[in-house]
């Protein structure tokens, strides 16, 4: 609530004073809206006109979450899995609560991974992201199988390969969004 009133004050003062040409900074709202909004929008990717009889669509919401973290560590508060996972659960078709648990677990594990690697490069990020994507898909399968078992893990292989090869593209998209986000 306090945060919200801060934004409001900021906006009001910004309205009153003419925009200065020095010392500009993007608004707090813009800084936050880009990562949160993009992940939520990507969670709605299941609305795309793909009626698949096999799981093929990469978990784009989760991949954006990873990419934002890899590009800008500290984007996500550790509790970000609660709202983002809840939103993803509305559209994913997985048993309700599955994305909530997996997103939060991933963010906690990412913190641990950050402690391990002080310096990082693109390849290392990609491998780490692949591990996380694999874990996310397997976790989702385990949770779905808990409700109704039968699906084999091999079913996930095409989806996994597609997701891992799509990851660099997602990183490019996120870095583009990041440029827009920080534009002054």
């Amino acid at each position, binding site marked *: 609530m306090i945060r919200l009133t801060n934004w409001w004050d900021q906006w009001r003062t910004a309205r009153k004073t003419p925009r200065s040409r020095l010392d500009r900074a993007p608004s707090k709202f813009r800084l936050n809206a880009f990562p949160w909004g993009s992940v939520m929008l990507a969670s709605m990717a299941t609305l795309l*006109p793909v009626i698949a009889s096999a799981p093929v669509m990469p978990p784009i919401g989760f991949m954006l979450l990873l990419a934002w973290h890899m590009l800008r560590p500290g984007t996500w508060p550790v509790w970000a899995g609660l709202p983002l996972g809840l939103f993803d659960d509305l559209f994913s078709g997985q*048993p309700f*609560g599955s994305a909530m*648990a997996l997103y939060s677990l991933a963010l906690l594990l990412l913190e641990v991974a950050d402690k391990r690697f002080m310096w990082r490069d693109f390849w290392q990020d990609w491998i780490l992201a692949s591990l996380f994507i694999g874990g996310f898909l397997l976790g989702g399968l385990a949770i779905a199988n808990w409700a109704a078992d039968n699906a084999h893990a091999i079913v996930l292989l095409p989806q996994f390969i597609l997701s891992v090869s799509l990851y660099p593209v997602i990183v490019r998209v996120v870095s583009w969004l990041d440029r827009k986000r920080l534009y002054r």
Partner: protein
Amino acid sequence: MAPPSKRRPGFSRKAQYQIFTGYLLAFFTVLAGLALVVIAAADPRGFAVLRSGANEVTAPVGHGFASLRVGVHNIGKSVSAYFFAASQNAELQEEAKKNRIALIEARALKQENKRLKRLLGLVEQDGKTVVAARLIGSTSASTRRIAILGAGSRQGVRAGQPVRASNGLIGRVLDTSLNTSRVLLITDPDNVVPVRRARDGLVAFAEGRSDGLIDIRLINIGVNPFKPGDVMLTSGSGGLYAPNIPVAIIERKTTDGAVARILADPAATDFVVVQSIYQPEIATRIEAEDAENANLDNESEAEAAKRAKAETPQ
């Protein structure tokens, strides 16, 4: 770049508490998520309100995309059809000639079938069409195979009703909201359909594998009688699905059954039909049936009906 250290923000108590609460909330969310999964497993319709709300809001997007999807799916077919038009035309005309004869025979068989059923005192209750609608989305990222249908309780759709396309079974309605409903596809591992082989009526179960194929499981375990190319139809036993809806075609044998490809690809179908739940009944309405048939059928049939009526215990 090196990540900023978030754990030690300095000596501010407030900042330290905020971080602590954040971690607490994250751990709690993991547990709460798993708890929700357990609740959802016990009561699969528990969170239907939230989900169907989201579906209602986003339904217009799906409707807009639906026609595009089928269009894109058919581009390849249209192109190849153009190249093979002449030879295909000749083939098809030949086939049509054969089919016309087969159709006449089938019509005769259908009539005979009807008469025999009446002799047995059975009235067939075909799945009546509730509504025709478009599939407007699906859970393409999850191993659960659920599609969103662009018609809901306002159009008369109820949970449990079978959904079919012109060329085969699609699935059954899981839950409904006002204008959308969720359809459990037959490729979902949770969906079990009683089927029989079209050729000889061999009974089996079809169970989804969530990769576009379905497992056909025999009820009588023994010699595996399946052959690639066998067509499986719904048997109608146990109710729910009306009999004789095409389901799948056998692709290969396994040790305890077969793996089959579904006949109605949900991605390629434009409109699907929701049918009323099939309930086989012993005829009590045979009189009505008689009155209907008396004026159009021949003498022997009417006699058969009378005999059936006499035999049916009231």
